[in-house]
């Protein structure tokens, strides 16, 4: 059983005396603290003669009570007097957290901040794109400054290392489209159109779109977290002072890697999706694998491939740009890294889908 500190209210010669007993340490103080706070009669003295151990928390509780009731402290041991002296010198009424206004003001304030940040954010990310273009131009003028090794490394991370997961995802997407498409088309006796469906939708839309989403999740988030952590540990500041431009050394290789790898990954994803569709058609629809592939050549216009390949680098640019931009915005603490990484992925995917819609309208108008 824990021994709690306790109090006893006595009548003394010159008024009420509060006599404390038990150990006055952090582990035993809670009940005494509450009782002392509840005591609202005038008190002349607080007596410590019956107390045992004391630490600064006990001393603080006693001293605060004495201060609030204007009471004397009697019977303090040598240790107690020393600690009372320590806490006397350390009293403070400062806030423990920054002051918070009423809820409705904070809600309005937050809305305002969000709106202005949205406006400024658009401006800043365009400025960031501009800075990236400028440093790309500078690198073109001074090709020896170009960090080819960093680029190759990022291409490996963005492209080669994601081949398995993107392949698996695309294969399954192809399977699902073919299988579900066949069920619907069978109502019109047009199962063979499954080939058109799989070929056109993967080459034109889904191959690149799904790949962008995967790259945003894999690489966009990694860019934001890497750059954000480097920002926190002042590595980026260190680079600047040495004369290395973080834009050239960190941002440009990442953006270029994404721009270069996205068309390759998008094409690869489309091909694997077609293979997936062909496999399931071979197994369940009775369309031989090779016939499926041969028909693809006949039913899919080459423009579908062009549409996909034109969109891919743009999506790569968006994913890498938001990732790097959000990473470079990190300031202050570790929580910000997580926040910015989330934002990078959400913004990248959102912008890719919005832009995809524009592309769809644009290319249809073009007649492709």
């Amino acid at each position, binding site marked *: 059983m*824990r*021994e709690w500190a306790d109090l006893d209210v006595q009548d003394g010669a010159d008024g009420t005396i509060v006599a404390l007993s038990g150990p006055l340490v952090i*582990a035993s103080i809670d009940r005494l603290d509450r009782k002392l706070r509840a005591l609202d009669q005038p008190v002349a003295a607080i007596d410590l003669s019956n107390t045992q*151990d004391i630490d600064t928390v006990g001393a603080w*509780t006693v001293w605060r009570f004495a201060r609030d009731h204007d009471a004397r402290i009697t019977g303090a041991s040598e240790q107690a007097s020393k600690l009372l*002296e*320590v*806490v006397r010198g350390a009293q403070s009424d400062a806030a*423990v957290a920054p002051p918070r206004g009423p809820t409705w003001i904070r809600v309005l304030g937050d809305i305002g901040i969000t709106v202005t940040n949205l406006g400024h954010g658009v401006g800043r990310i365009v400025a960031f794109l501009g800075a990236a273009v400028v440093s790309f131009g500078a690198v073109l003028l001074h090709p020896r400054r170009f960090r080819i090794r960093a680029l190759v490394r990022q291409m490996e991370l963005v492209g080669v290392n994601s081949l398995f997961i993107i392949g698996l995802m695309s294969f399954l997407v192809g399977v699902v489209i073919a299988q579900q498409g066949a069920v619907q088309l069978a109502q019109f006796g047009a199962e063979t159109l499954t080939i058109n469906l799989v070929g056109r939708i993967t080459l034109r839309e889904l191959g690149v779109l799904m790949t962008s989403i995967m790259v945003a999740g894999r690489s966009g988030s990694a860019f934001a977290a890497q750059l954000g952590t480097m920002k926190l540990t002042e590595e980026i500041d260190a680079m600047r002072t040495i004369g290395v431009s973080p834009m050239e050394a960190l941002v440009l290789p990442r953006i270029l890697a994404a721009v270069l790898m996205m068309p390759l990954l998008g094409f690869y994803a489309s091909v694997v999706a077609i293979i997936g569709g062909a496999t399931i058609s071979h197994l369940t629809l009775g369309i031989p694998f090779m016939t499926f592939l041969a028909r693809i050549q006949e039913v899919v216009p080459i423009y579908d491939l062009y549409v996909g390949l034109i969109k891919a680098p743009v999506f790569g640019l968006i994913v890498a740009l938001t990732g790097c931009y959000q990473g470079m915005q990190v300031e202050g603490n570790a929580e910000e890294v997580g926040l910015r990484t989330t934002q990078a992925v959400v913004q990248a995917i959102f912008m890719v889908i919005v832009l995809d819609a524009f592309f769809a309208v644009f290319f249809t108008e073009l007649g492709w």
Partner: protein
Amino acid sequence: MAGQPDDTAPATGSDGALAEITPPYEGEYPIVIEGLRNAFGEHVVHDDLSLKVRRGEILGVVGGSGTGKSVLMRSIIGLQRPQAGRIEVFGKDITGAEPDQNIGVRSHWGVLFQGGALFSTLTVAENVEVPLKEFFPELATELRHEIARYKVVLTGLPADAASKFPSELSGGMRKRAGLARALALDPELLFLDEPTAGLDPIGAALLDDLIRNLTDTLGLTVFLITHDLDTLHAICDRVAVLADGQVVAIGTIPELLRSDHPWIQEYFNGPRARAATATADRRQRDGAAGPGAGGKALDRPAGQGA
């Protein structure tokens, strides 16, 4: 806390869930290390290291870079599992305890990490409240705030620093905030990892004085890792020298100076050491003049920082 192997009176009665209050440690050696061995792969950091820390002393731990000062501290506080050896804290064998295992001594020590290691999303006062909430959740919120406030002031921070976030503080203030958190539970044992590293000489001297004063008034035992010769001279009762994976010497500085270990000779007789000795001598001579530590720190020999 609950369920700790405690040999004192058995827990009975309605408060059975709450642990016994451990009385202050009365033994002579709060920390006893015997035959400690730490190795990372092929690299042996400690081999058969033994060390005893006396109650109430400030023990300075010195050693060249890579001699395992921080590893030693991490072993004692249970963040690093030793390959062999025995570590006793407050007479309890804690060797091989998991980092988050309940060993009943964690509320009796405070640790100041090298960078402060403050939780960056909490204010300074909230940082101090973390161990309070963890170990004594029953404390009234108001009392908890009060404790956090006076601890902040106690460590020499301005009162309004309590509501600031660590990123808004300077390096020296962060060290003090870390010290405030380390002192949150009124520990008997304090681990300090290079408390004065990265501080200006005046700030370092003030922090030294603060540590000495707190040690004396609160009756702490301090395990202090440092490279700062001024700190060693100014506040350490004894100094332990780590080299070759062992404690090669332990004692007061005059005792160490009589040792003929080459590293100790070089360390305490180098140009920087002589300057620190001169400062320490002067501090001792001026000792009666007054408690103004900042003033004393100012009149150091020129070239001290070179």
